[in-house]
């Protein structure tokens, strides 16, 4: 069947009443967590992850993906109206978006951001649809040795683009790999770090770890910082941009789509990188760079589009390689794995309804989000006015219910609290916890690939260097290491002058 035929099937799946409802719920919840400072897509997805276990895999993934890209839309609302990024990827939107709002153009800024998000999101879905099937076919030729090398390369890419000093990121990755080994060994059934606790046989609960590291620690951080600003509230009439503003937004929106898509497809590159690149490009191309930072339309349209274009293409590494390149997609991976579905090259062959249903739902979700973020913006402004002393306990209670509902295991609540406290402390001292969580997810596949390859080769380590796939990944690995060393040396050289 052709891609178009599959896509039509996908629309049949996505347009079923149940999936349409789940898509709407995901978009609504995603926008809400995106709007609320301190809660990002990761926390929003982690909170509703347990609920997906009672759904079919397609419905579950449609809802979670809705939260993922919904949060990107919602984050821009807070950035524009409050001047505080609703989630990390909206930092750049604050610069010119909030300045526009202060000049009385809040409504126009919201529309430019929403239309840009829609265009960026749509372009990335088309790209995902065109590139993913071909890449998946190529990946089917990869053996266990190459898979282990691929996992190591993926972690290295994550480390290379992570925030913070490399030594801290490296430590977070190995800590994540170590945490991932807790439980019964898949090959020998030996107990690892279980100390007789059979409830740890399946390892530490990923949901508890994710909610603790991202949900609780983010919330504790927000409580410490506090939010005192009042949001600017635009009227419906103000939502229409002037002809000049609309014309100024066209070019940056198109360029932002391309930049966001390319950067999102690279494993490990976060939304923040693509938005900053887009901002830099627009400033460079602008005839009036001095207007950037003072409410330039291009400074809002470009990054906001890039942000949403990144979302769609960041699903490529997950769906094609089975690698969650950013923490939010790790939650999607966990949801699929809980249903016995392994994302990767075989996903399109074994579960085409999930892949194409997801793509079709993203088209629909993008439309829902334009509706949610423009005519209904007043609703989310009201949410921004809700005091933290009410929101915080409710979020924590949802976290506890979510973690407990997965397997009714009290130990998971303890894991969540410890992960929250540790995550808070690590973030406070400049450790990026995202690589830790990705390593927890990737560790198992890395170990399995490593041990299977060594079994096959009777202990010959050269198996990791054999075959075009392994050699390509190793070449990539070496290039990344060399780039890091060279940039590090250049930085030392510059600071020494």
């Amino acid at each position, binding site marked *: 069947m052709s891609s178009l035929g599959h896509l039509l099937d996908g629309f049949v799946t996505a347009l079923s009443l149940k999936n349409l409802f789940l898509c709407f719920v995901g978009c609504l919840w995603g926008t809400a967590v995106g709007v609320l400072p301190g809660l990002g897509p990761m926390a929003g997805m982690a909170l509703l992850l347990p609920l997906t276990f009672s759904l079919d895999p397609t419905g579950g993934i449609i809802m979670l993906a809705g939260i993922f890209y919904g949060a990107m839309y919602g984050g821009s609302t807070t950035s524009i109206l409050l001047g505080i990024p609703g989630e990390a990827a909206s930092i750049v939107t604050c610069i010119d978006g909030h300045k526009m709002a202060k000049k009385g153009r809040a409504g126009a800024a919201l529309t430019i951001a929403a239309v840009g998000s829609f265009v960026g999101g749509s372009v990335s879905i088309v790209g995902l649809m065109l590139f993913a099937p071909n890449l998946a076919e190529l990946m089917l030729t990869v053996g266990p040795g190459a898979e282990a090398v691929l996992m190591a390369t993926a972690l290295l890419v994550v480390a290379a683009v992570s925030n913070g000093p490399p030594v801290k990121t490296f430590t977070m990755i*190995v800590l994540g790999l170590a945490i991932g080994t807790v439980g019964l060994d898949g*090959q020998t059934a030996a107990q*690892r*770090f279980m100390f007789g606790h059979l409830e740890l046989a399946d390892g530490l609960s990923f949901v508890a770890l994710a909610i603790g590291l991202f949900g*609780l620690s983010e919330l504790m951080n927000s409580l410490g910082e506090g939010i005192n600003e009042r949001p600017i509230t635009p009227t419906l009439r103000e939502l229409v941009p002037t002809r000049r503003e609309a014309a100024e937004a066209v070019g940056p929106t198109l360029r932002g789509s391309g930049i966001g898509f390319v950067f999102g497809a690279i494993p490990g590159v976060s939304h923040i990188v693509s938005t900053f690149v887009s901002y830099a490009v627009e400033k460079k191309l602008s005839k009036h760079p001095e207007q950037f930072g003072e409410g330039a339309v291009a400074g809002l349209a470009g990054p906001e589009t890039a942000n949403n274009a990144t979302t769609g293409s960041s699903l490529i590494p997950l769906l094609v390689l089975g690698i969650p390149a950013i923490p939010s997609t790790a939650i999607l991976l966990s949801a699929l794995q809980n249903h016995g579905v392994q994302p990767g090259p075989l996903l399109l062959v074994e579960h085409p309804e999930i892949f194409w249903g997801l793509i079709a739902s993203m088209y629909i979700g993008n439309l829902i989000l334009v509706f949610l973020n423009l005519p209904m913006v007043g609703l989310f402004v009201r949410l921004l006015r809700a005091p933290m002393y*009410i929101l915080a306990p*409710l979020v924590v209670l949802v976290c506890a219910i979510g973690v*407990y*509902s997965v397997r009714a295991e009290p130990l998971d609540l303890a894991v969540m609290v410890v992960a929250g406290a540790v995550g808070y402390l690590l973030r406070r001292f400049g450790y990026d916890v995202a690589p830790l969580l990705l390593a927890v997810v990737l560790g198992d596949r890395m170990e399995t690939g490593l041990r299977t390859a060594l079994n096959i080769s009777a202990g010959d380590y050269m198996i990791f260097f054999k075959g075009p796939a392994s050699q390509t990944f190793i070449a990539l690995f070496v290039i990344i290491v060399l780039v890091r060393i060279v940039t590090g040396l250049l930085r030392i050289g510059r600071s020494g002058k």
Partner: protein
Amino acid sequence: MSTHTTQRTGDAVIGLALAALGVWGTWVAKGTGLGTAAEPGAGMFPMAVCVLLTIGGLGCAWRAWRQTSGTEGKRWIDGTALFALVQIVMLAVLFVPLGMPLAGFMFVCGMTRTLGDVSWRRAATIGFVSVLAFWLLFDVLLSVQLPYGWWVSA
């Protein structure tokens, strides 16, 4: 331990703690069985990552030791965050024995009262309404399994 530190000291302490965790993990993993190169045992991979964790932790501590900046005062944990953490720990401890409705009510009520400095009556109303809403949403509508505590079971 003092509630105050500096970025440098914090980095060093966390680095050394991670290194200690790595040493302990290496020792435990070794006991699980390392196997051979042709047939790696259950402890081989955990031991390798724990050795790397030790090296990484020591690297973080060494980096902190060499650091000249980051000597300004910093708290290990913000007062409000610490307060919230204590209440979250209590929620986690009481969640199963007392059940979601009672533990949830106590938690929301306590946290709202102290974070927002509102009256006990208002805090109790917020606690009651939110627990009722969660019960309707999760138990009645979504059939999520919730604990109801020993006192309901009895």
